[in-house]
């Protein structure tokens, strides 16, 4: 039984009068593939932001590899190995695809003296299938390539946990398969992945475990087939 690398306990996040997260408990073990689903507005992105450090939760604890990371700013969390991609891709538009990767390589990982950052970047681009576009400007990429770049940037940080935030939204079937293959391959590198998605086919294929978030509360957490059949989960998705 591997130890949990991420432990979220009792996390509460409020925006003025609105409670986005209402006491969420959530854990991920090393190398695990977890799906996180829920209707729009249920708090999935808020949870991601609290875990990644771009938002601060008002109550509750977040532990990464046993360490309480509450006071850690986002840039410190990624250095610990906690990476995330953005739902709407945020490339560094003035830089090429390769240069985009150099930023996390230089800042989120420790290299030795004289390391060849460009070579490492090429390696990652090969992994995600963007190698041909290494010198293209990142602002002009297609949707699926931008999603790949998002994930590549997260992977460049050599993370132990990667949170993929709706990387497949709006993509075609074959593009979804592309991204899915990419994410599946991360397990071989020992990277735990939290996949937030609405594309159920991909979630079912990918996840060893599924957690369901509705209105800021986790209403189910366990075996994918079992979770998807629970009455509360079905009710939450009625009308979707």
């Amino acid at each position, binding site marked *: 039984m591997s130890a949990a690398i991420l432990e979220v306990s009792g996390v509460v996040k409020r925006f003025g009068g609105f409670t986005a997260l209402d006491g969420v408990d959530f854990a991920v073990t090393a190398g695990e593939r977890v799906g996180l689903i829920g209707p729009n507005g249920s708090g999935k992105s808020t949870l991601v932001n609290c875990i*990644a*450090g*771009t938002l601060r939760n008002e109550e509750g604890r977040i532990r990464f590899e046993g360490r309480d990371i509450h006071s850690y*700013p*986002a*840039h410190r969390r*990624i*250095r610990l190995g906690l*990476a*995330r991609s*953005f739902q709407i891709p*945020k*490339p*560094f*538009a*003035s*830089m090429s695809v390769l*240069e985009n990767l*150099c*930023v*996390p390589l*230089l*800042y*989120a*990982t420790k290299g030795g003296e004289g390391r060849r950052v460009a070579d490492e970047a090429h390696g990652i681009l090969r992994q995600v299938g963007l190698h041909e576009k290494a010198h293209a400007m990142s602002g002009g990429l297609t949707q699926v390539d931008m999603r790949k770049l998002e994930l590549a*940037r997260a992977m*460049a*940080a050599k993370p132990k946990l990667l949170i993929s935030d709706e990387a497949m939204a709006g993509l075609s079937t074959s593009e979804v398969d592309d991204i899915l293959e990419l994410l599946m391959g991360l397990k071989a590198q020992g990277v735990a992945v939290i996949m937030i998605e609405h594309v159920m086919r991909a979630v079912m294929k990918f996840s060893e475990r599924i957690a369901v978030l509705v209105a800021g509360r986790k209403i189910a957490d366990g075996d994918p087939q079992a979770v998807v059949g629970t009455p509360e989960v079905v009710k939450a998705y009625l009308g979707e």
Partner: protein
Amino acid sequence: MSNRNFAIVAFAVAIAFAAASQLVPNEYFFTAAYVVLQFVILATAWNILGGYTGYVNFGSAAFFAIGAYSTVMLYNAFKAPLLVMIVAGTLVAGLLGLGLGYLTLRLRGVFFAIASLALAVVLYTFVVNWDYVGGARGAYVLQPREVPFGLPRYIHLLYIVLVLEAAVALVVARTIEKSTIGRGLAAIRDDELAAECSGVPTLRLKIFSATVSGALMGMAGTTFPFYLSYIEPSSAFGLSYAVNSIAMPLIGGMMSWIGPLIGAVLLGTVQQLVQVTISSAWNLLIVGVLLVLFVTLAPNGIMGWVEAWRKRRSRR
């Protein structure tokens, strides 16, 4: 070109300019060149925080003036040597940048911009009300009668000092630009949140950028009291500094160290001509109009045109 080689070239060019100036018969050259060089330093300095990091500083005049007024204070207190005054002014301005950055760079860029404007006014009010540095009446800072290094007039020395300062500013800017820090700053400029989530310590880098930028702008101001042997707040905090330090990098190109240099030389020279032939109010109007035209129609400036032209050529 490596940093060391660029520095060597920059200083070699500076020394060449310094030496060649002694062959120029027209004394007006020195007074005009002094102003243009001032702008080279200001534009280059502004661009470190502006173009590289994406944070607009409307208060360049505050940093420039604090460099100038620290010279006035040291002059009144000890008649300190010029080099000491330059270093001191640069450090004080750097501290100001550090302070302003620390207070306001946690917030959105627009708040920093407004705060920088606020800073200029607050500082101006302080200086106007402080008699030790002359207040609103101004202060006299007399050029020493003995001109060092056997130069014919003191303005020649000021010119040479500025040429060297400009070289320093360009070397600093380029070194930052090509370094890891420069990449981090560019990431902050392109998308600060994504940069933070890529491991870039955004607050630390922004404060660094503001400190260096402020220090160099202060450096530009340290010799200013000697220029006219007199200084008063409305000229030290002049509007021309605020608008030019933004317009010159914008027009020249904000992405690299060359843009501010081009913008400053071009725009600075044009302004010297207009000022002499028409008036200083028209001069400022032209700068303002050019600023608006460039920012709406050619936001990447002259270097942007050069880059686009190069890309088109390589595609053929």
